[in-house]
């Protein structure tokens, strides 16, 4: 894909809109997945997808080809998602208390269950994790999603978010610590 991207990028940089269309069609689904993971809802994710390609189009001249186009796009999307999260209410302010109360039944550990009960436990943790993610700052949420769900090493997260390595490590650390604390409160932490 990198080779195909390179040819399309070269043409797009000269103003060839069809070439940029190729890139949009090729990368949209991947960018949507990242955007959804970071924002947690479809409407915001769709906005992030549009904004990502707009920014990419405006900044094509800045893309020098040192990284793959997909990686560059990924960075733009992560930063667009952070902007969307920052525009939302402050972290914690939108924490859905009803969801917490509804999730009141304490689940001690998934390891003790098997079969359908294990699935129920996993669904419960997923729901509680989604609620707990609201307690993270935009930067923590971005760093956590990139590390946990996208499997990016912390050095790449630092580059993507334009922060130092130490700051990226600290963001991942704070995110995991907060999630652990929140999930413990919600009764979903594994022992």
């Amino acid at each position: 894909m990198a080779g195909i991207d390179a040819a399309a990028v070269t043409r797009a940089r000269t103003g060839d809109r069809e070439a940029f269309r190729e890139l949009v069609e090729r990368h949209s689904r991947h960018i949507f997945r990242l955007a959804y993971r970071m924002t947690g809802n479809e409407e915001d994710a769709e906005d992030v997808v549009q904004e990502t390609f707009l920014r990419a189009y405006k900044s094509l001249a800045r893309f020098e080809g040192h990284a793959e186009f997909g990686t560059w796009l990924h960075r733009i999307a992560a930063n667009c998602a952070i902007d969307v999260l920052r525009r939302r209410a402050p972290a914690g302010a939108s924490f859905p208390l009803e969801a917490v109360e509804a999730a009141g039944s304490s689940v001690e550990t998934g390891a003790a269950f098997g079969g359908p009960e294990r699935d129920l436990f996993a669904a419960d943790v997923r729901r509680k994790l989604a609620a707990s993610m609201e307690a993270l700052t935009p930067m923590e949420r971005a760093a956590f999603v990139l590390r946990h769900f996208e499997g990016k090493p912390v050095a790449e997260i630092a580059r993507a978010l334009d922060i130092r390595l130490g700051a990226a490590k600290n963001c991942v650390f704070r995110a995991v610590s907060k999630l652990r604390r929140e999930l413990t409160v919600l009764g979903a932490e594994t022992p």
Partner: protein
Amino acid sequence: MRHIGDEDLILIAYGEETPASRHVKACPRCRTRVARMSEFLASLEETPVPERDENYGREVWKKLAPRLTQMPVRRPLFGLGFGLGFGPSRNLFRLAAVAALVAVAFLVGRSWPRRPEPLSASVRERILLSAVGDHLERSQTVLLDFVNADPAADIPAGDRRRAGELAADNRLIRQTASTAGDAAVASVLDDLERVLLELAHGAATADARTALRRRIDSEEVLFKVRVLEARVRAREQAPPAAGKSVTS
């Protein structure tokens, strides 16, 4: 024997190599901690991402294309990019956006009918405390980053920009604290602001950066900010009580 710190613990549990990885191999206690952390991380499964079919890219393009019509690609100028939204223009945009927001807020405040049920004082206070807590948290990250960096290396432009933005936010919070008569909080924020401004615009030489690190250390700026954040977070979690400041 020095055991691994929490940051390394998490990274190792994610499978990353850090200087502490070797210690983990030799230390049963740290291996147990890593195993427990790995178990916790493995339990964090995500909510399924909604599927988008093969036509999704075409749908995205359909919405995007009209927005690109009036937007020519900015071609490289002597090999240098000059895309919008970066560098000094970003700050100008920020200022313009803030000015526009203030103007809109003013006009809306004058003409919008009063809401029948405004946010209660306790809800407003919690939102404010949450924002202040996040600000202090972000400031600590920037300060820690600077304190732990190589004194010979210049402060990266991104860090300077962040420090400048934090200093601007800090000024508003400090002024609010002063107006509310919270002298102790205002004093901590004043110390923090001077450091943030120095990070944003000064400390251009290795000597200046060393001096700033000494000042952060001798004035216990990081410690004070950490204590203040802890108090703000505790206040945020506490049941509503009227007329209580973060220092009380």
